[in-house]
């Protein structure tokens, strides 16, 4: 006899972490692994700014080790509000601090959808959303990002997928896994779709400070005050502290539109008591600081993205849209086989660990893989050389 798990876990796949199992196998087989798969800057040559660490340490010495208010500490929420206002976010209704942006997204989805509802998520897109919807027994509907348009959302495809059971649209901007930054007119198009259909816009902006080549990030909630918009952000990426698990949600829009939904979200925050308390003391110093770590960080990320663009596009059978932000690239592969088979073989044969495009959703028939561009240029170069050699020898490329 076996304990039968809940149905919600059955269809849950998490390619980013599942690929780790293949990598472990390759390591046991003696391969020299090059990790281009984990979006964790601390594993590479990036460090949490010192003043954030000092703030957490001081909080612990001041015995801030008990629970915080369920919505988060006052000084952190004030700093988040100041930052949001400076980005032009209007009609802010509330802010709550969470255990990573992951928890904010979980709370926001759980408070909104009933079984039978659906939510529009990007393909390709970060897999947390489809997993959480799976957990809620709710359908994830994928809308396409348009590779030909530098991975901007395909508004026509998005609109075609909205029906009367649709409750929300998820935008990830800057995008994981494509590295695209959305242009204002596309965001306005999405907001308009939300406006016409009474939908909530989930705007995941966790990479909004990591911008290259003078690209500008426009916060969705700065473009409308008549739509319910949830803006997700946190310390994980911009402030190089993913292991702190500190994120937040900014709820904006008309009071009467958002009130019931907000009350439901706050109920869920109360049930789980609070986010980590001492870590929250890192928020105000981070947001109110001089961001001096960013210049150097962006410089390194930008040159790694440029190297990726250059080397990937030099490989026959690969095309790569140059990333504009964040630390990912999502090159396409001209092969006949599934990209999952390609990637698993790549890991086993060469030790280069990437994640297959299928793990993020993609246009049917297309093949991709995601690269994390955080490693230094030396490692990236070695990895890309191995990818080039491996692809050349790949069965459907030899014909």
């Amino acid at each position, binding site marked *: 006899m076996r*304990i039968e798990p809940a149905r919600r876990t059955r269809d849950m796949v998490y390619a980013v972490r599942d690929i780790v199992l293949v990598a472990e196998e390759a390591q046991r087989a003696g391969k020299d692994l090059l990790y281009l798969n984990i979006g964790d800057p601390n594993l590479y040559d990036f460090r949490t700014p010192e003043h954030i660490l000092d703030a957490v340490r001081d909080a612990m010495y001041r015995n801030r080790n008990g629970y915080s208010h369920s919505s988060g500490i006052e000084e952190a929420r004030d700093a988040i509000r100041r930052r949001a206002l400076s980005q032009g976010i209007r009609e802010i209704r509330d802010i709550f601090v969470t255990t990573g942006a992951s*928890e904010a997204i979980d709370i926001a989805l759980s408070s909104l959808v009933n079984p039978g509802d659906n939510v529009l998520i990007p393909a390709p897109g970060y897999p947390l959303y489809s997993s959480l919807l799976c957990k809620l027994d709710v359908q994830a509907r994928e809308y396409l990002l348009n590779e030909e348009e530098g991975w901007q959302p395909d508004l026509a495809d998005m609109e075609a997928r909205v029906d009367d059971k649709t409750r929300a649209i998820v935008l990830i901007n800057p995008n994981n896994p494509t590295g695209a930054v959305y242009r204002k007119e596309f965001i306005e198009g999405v907001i308009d779709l939300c406006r016409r259909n009474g939908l909530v816009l989930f705007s995941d902006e966790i990479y909004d400070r990591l911008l290259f080549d003078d690209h500008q990030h426009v916060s969705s909630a700065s473009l409308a005050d008549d739509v319910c918009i949830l803006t997700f952000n946190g310390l994980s990426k911009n402030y190089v502290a993913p292991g702190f698990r500190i994120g937040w949600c900014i709820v904006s829009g008309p009071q009467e539109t958002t009130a019931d939904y907000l009350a439901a979200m706050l*109920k869920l925050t109360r*049930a789980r008591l609070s986010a980590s308390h001492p870590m929250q003391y890192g928020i105000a110093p981070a947001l109110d600081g001089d961001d001096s770590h960013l210049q150097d960080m962006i410089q390194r990320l930008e040159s790694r993205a440029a190297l990726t663009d250059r080397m990937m596009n030099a490989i026959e059978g690969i095309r790569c849209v140059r990333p504009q932000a964040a630390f990912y690239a999502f090159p396409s592969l001209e092969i006949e086989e599934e990209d999952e088979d390609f990637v698993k073989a790549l890991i086993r044969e060469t030790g280069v660990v990437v994640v297959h495009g299928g793990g993020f959703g993609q246009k049917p028939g297309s093949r991709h893989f995601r690269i994390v561009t955080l490693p230094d240029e030396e490692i990236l170069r070695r990895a890309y050389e191995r990818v080039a050699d491996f692809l050349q020898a790949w069965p459907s490329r030899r014909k």
Partner: protein
Amino acid sequence: MSIRAARRTAGIRYANREVVQLAEEAQRRGRKLLNLNIGDPNIFGFRTPECIQEAMIRAIRENHNGYSHSSGLAEARAAIRRQAESRGLRKVQEVLVTNGGSEAIDMALSALVNSGDNVLLPAPGYPLYAALLSRLEAETRRYRLDESNNWQPDIEHMAEQIDGRTRAIVLINPNNPTGCVYSRETIEAVIDLCRGHKLVLISDEIYDRILFNGHEHVPSASLADDVCIVTINGLSKNYIAPGLRCGWSITSGPAGLCEDYLQGMRKLSRVRLSAGHPQQHAIAPALLGAQEHLPPLCDILSRRARFCAERLNAIEGVQCVEPQGAFYAFPSLQIAGRDEDFVRELILETGVIVVQGSGFGLQGQPSYFRIVTLPGDEVLAEAFDRIEDFLGSWRRRHPFTEEAAAPAL
């Protein structure tokens, strides 16, 4: 147009935090607040042991600020496993480190129940479980804890609640809100029910080191190796660090029985990436350390528990079972009217903040309220004086008659 909230949130009530709003109102009215409502030792002057703080600060300095493995830091999991085995837990299959015991419970339930399934929860019991089941659109069924038997679970009543859709029984031992520690016989009887009905036992043992007057805690998973038992624990209470949000689950039982369920839990743990990383570096030092903070902690809490019981029992119309562990007491009240109204007025009139029994899943008569026994002796004494005065005035305004008293549940 208003955005409709999901149905799953409609039934969620969290009285612990709702009384806070009343307290704010009382403060505006100029009352001097006495907090007997929050199970957070740090706000009452208890301090996180130095070794935990130092380990976490060292981890931050050493750049353990990225994600950890989804299941938790290897060194922490090894320490948890070692401690579990030394306490007699049998057939440990997996240890998962989580964002507080709360997340461990969330994962254990989310990986198990489908909508329409039901889970047995104690009445009274800590409200997180009912909120999570509501979120999962699963049904809460309450079994009685028996006040006349020192708040041990009523096994017969528990058995009556089980049907074909029951998936798990939740035990909270030592108990929040009663402070009761369960006897070996009680736990064995619950395990028998799980065995007979193929149920998972979720054993919440987050207070298992906070014990008074020679009472011993028996881990459920030390009593069986043929039932799937998920033991919940963490740094929050035993190690005075609730704000670090560092908990874990230990799943034990036959490998074949647990495997699919465990896969479900592991998947959920991968989705949310990892628990807070630096704090996980404090787990091994905490569990393997000298535990020097515990004897004085238990000593002071046991004196306060005795004082609470004695002082409350001296008030006419109040009865209180003396707590055997943790930091709560759950006195009963002989009053007319709803406990919710009594507590609301108590807070607004006297500033003494407690939580009504119905917040812990107990409806009807007699009424109850939960007090947290963490505050200092003088605060407790002052609070009980105010409660005594207020209760006297309440009973004069709302005469208590035996006919008003219908049995709870």
